[in-house]
């Protein structure tokens, strides 16, 4: 008995939604097997990573706080990837956004006023856009691959943090620690529920996703992104400039990564520290794909990835799983998702080999 892939006449709507779920389930199964084989409590690891964050109500606020930046960045990336613009450097744009917001916070230190936070947000968004503009410019003018440039700029941005917090922005009262001073009250993102750590960034993430969904499904802008990604030649015939699309895609995804960065530094961190880059920008790539490049899907995908972050921390303390385990699980989700995507366009059919398959 053999199996054969056969092209479907129409892409399967069911598989579009089924394969992300299947990818997560497969990750849990294969993860349990692998971690058992290398001597950990594999089933316990999967339980702690995927279930504890959901069953333990105390962890829900953590989920929201971790999911918010993933959703905001993931939404931006889902827009860019629709247009086949491969911005891999959201982490860098997130960092520059955080730094730009930090700059405003430090410059306004000690001042009060409701204008400070909006100004920080604007600075963060602008910072992300400017940093994404570099790969866009290089791509449009010199046809340099945006995957490479945006990725490499991420490493440059990390060094920029280290420089700024060791020299010009170092906390004068910080006893030599490489970090900025705590932001003043006016530069901190307020929590929306008293007694929790859930900050304003969480509802902002949901609103961003909803707005993006509306724009992508209803507007000419969304149409342009999709048509350039699906058929560049047809897009040109339809009157959409490829270069303008690259600019728009990079700037939008950079702006949202920058927004996530400034919300993160003004919310959970409230100062710039060396540990600010937490790979949200990279994990958001998985979020974008797991969410099917659909802003509504990104909300759920962001939650799934947040679960693995929170659960990974739980598993570290309860069953001594190494920190890298989280990354392994996240990578497995992406791997199984991309592999499973073939089922959207193809179906598996059993074909008779040399022998009859009557028994099967």
């Amino acid at each position, binding site marked *: 008995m053999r199996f054969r892939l*056969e092209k479907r*006449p*129409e*892409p399967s709507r069911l598989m579009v939604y089924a394969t992300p779920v299947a990818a997560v389930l497969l990750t849990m199964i294969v993860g349990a097997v692998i971690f058992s084989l290398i001597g950990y409590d594999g089933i316990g690891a999967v339980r702690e990573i995927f279930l504890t964050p959901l069953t333990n109500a105390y962890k829900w606020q953590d989920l929201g706080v971790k999911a918010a930046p993933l959703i905001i960045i993931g939404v931006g990336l889902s827009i860019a990837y629709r247009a086949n613009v491969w911005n891999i450097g959201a982490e860098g744009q997130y960092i520059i956004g955080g730094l730009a917001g930090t700059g405003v916070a430090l410059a306004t230190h000690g001042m009060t006023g409701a204008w400070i936070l909006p100004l920080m947000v604007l600075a963060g968004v602008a910072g992300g856009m400017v940093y994404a503009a570099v790969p866009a410019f290089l791509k449009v003018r010199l046809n340099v691959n945006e995957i490479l440039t945006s990725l490499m700029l991420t490493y440059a941005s990390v060094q920029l943090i280290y420089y700024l917090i060791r020299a010009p922005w170092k906390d004068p009262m910080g006893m030599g620690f490489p970090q900025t001073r705590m932001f003043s009250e006016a530069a901190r993102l307020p929590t929306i529920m008293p007694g929790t750590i859930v900050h304003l960034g969480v509802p902002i993430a949901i609103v961003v996703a909803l707005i993006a969904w509306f724009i992508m499904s*209803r*507007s*000419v*802008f969304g*149409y342009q992104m*999709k*048509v350039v990604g*699906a*058929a560049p*030649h*047809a897009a*040109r*015939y*339809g*009157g959409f*400039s490829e270069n303008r699309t690259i600019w728009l895609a990079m700037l939008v995804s950079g702006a949202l990564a920058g927004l996530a960065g400034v919300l993160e530094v003004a919310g959970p961190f409230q100062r710039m520290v060396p540990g600010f880059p937490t790979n949200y920008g990279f994990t958001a790539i998985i979020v974008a794909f797991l969410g099917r490049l659909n802003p509504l899907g990104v909300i759920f995908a962001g939650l799934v990835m947040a679960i693995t972050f929170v659960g990974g921390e739980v598993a570290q303390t309860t069953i001594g799983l190494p920190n890298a385990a989280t990354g392994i699980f996240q990578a497995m989700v992406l791997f199984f998702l991309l592999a499973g995507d073939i089922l959207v366009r193809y179906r598996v059919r059993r074909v008779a080999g040399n022998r009859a398959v009557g028994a099967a």
Partner: protein
Amino acid sequence: MPHRLELTSISKRFPGVLANDDISFAVQPGEIHALLGENGAGKSTLVKMIYGIMQPDGGEIRWNGRPTVIASPKAARKLGIGMVFQHFSLFEALTVLENIALGMDGKIPARELETRIRDVMGIYGLLLDPHRTVATLSVGERQRIEIVRALLLDPKLLIMDEPTSVLTPQEVGQLFDVLRKLAAQGCSILYISHKLHEIRELCDTATILRGGKLVDTCDPRQETSRSMAEKMIGAGLKDIVRVPNRTLGQPKFVVSGLSTIKTGHFEVPADNIGFTVRTGEIFGIAGVAGNGQNALLDALSGEIRSSDKHAITIDGHPLGLLDTTGRRKHGLCAVPEERNGHAAVGEFTLSDNSVLTARDRLGMVVLGLINGGAAKTYTGKVIAEFAVKALGPGSTAGSLSGGNLQKYIMGREILQKPGVLVVSQPTWGVDAGAAAAIHQALVDLAAAGSAIVVISQDLDELLALCDTLAVINMGRLSPARPVGEVSVEEIGLLMGGVHGAAEAHDAVPA
């Protein structure tokens, strides 16, 4: 003598369709046998089974009288069955000899192969330099490589799939000479085509398929083109209905000094092209594929913008600097040759494909938002008026057959009532019934006062449709001539690159 090839009750089923249903016919040694039918009639499937690419679900193939299972193309070649495909598989950067060597089943030393190639070419009068790079060859010459490749195997049956669709009339004549010589030496030829006059000229027998079934096996010389066409489509053929004694109006669409820059290595750019189309006129541009038609269409549609705003004008308005959207707003619509991925997006629904080109002309966009309802209504109208076989506006373009997608695309542009419509290969791969409908729609659009440019490789189509004709060769356009005053031979010479007169660009259509 046994039949060379005999098919008995051959059937082949695909999910959802019976592609071949109980087909039986025989090919004699030395016979030129036409296989005739519309797209989707089952010709390709049948031929693929004879050449071993697919296996029949039922029925029997006999080769020289013996029941045979043809397991693979390699097995077919071993039996003596050769095939020349419609789409060539040649490496442009390699020489003729290297290409042929790559396609051989066994390893043959280059020198020996060259000797054999020269022998074969000598016998059949196929002129070709084995050391030329394929990229420098015309389409006709490229086809000769494929024929030589097949002849090297000393075939007893040669299958030719739509061989003349890319050739000039002179090249067609040369091909027929070769095929007749082959047949005279006992090689059978299975000739797939939908060009009926060619079949009447060349073939001894014609087997006509329709909807997967065999309709008739006849002697094409006893038939008329019309009678065979009607058997093919299973209904009476409609003639193009024209308004009698119509006169053409004022110059509407004027192109002058239009050139494009060479982009790809093997791309032919448009070179200083000029012509005038009057109100109500259908202007044809003939030419062999790859002579700059694609560049010309892109330059006319606005995908390639000109640096001279007066290079293209409609009713005196200069459009040269505008992009496709800007030109559409001025009434210039275009349909490129490639349907999937250029004229339409396969993954998108038909509704979304309507947004691609009709959004501004038909007010489908309000404040940057797409009015999905308007797109859907318009798409429904296109589907209804052009008899597009689709489940509805929500079907993806990729799920339509080639002919239906073409009907949709032509309908999408024609119902926008453009002042000027430029189309490339309007009926390429479209069945006879649909082609007649598209032709009628173009004639009606012209009668309503539009100026139409048709770029096509199909001379019959241009002669039937156009008022005026010019030929594009190596990116340059010949002077335009009224269709009634020009002979097929003359056009053929122009297509082959022989420009009779030097006054190429200052000529004005009479």
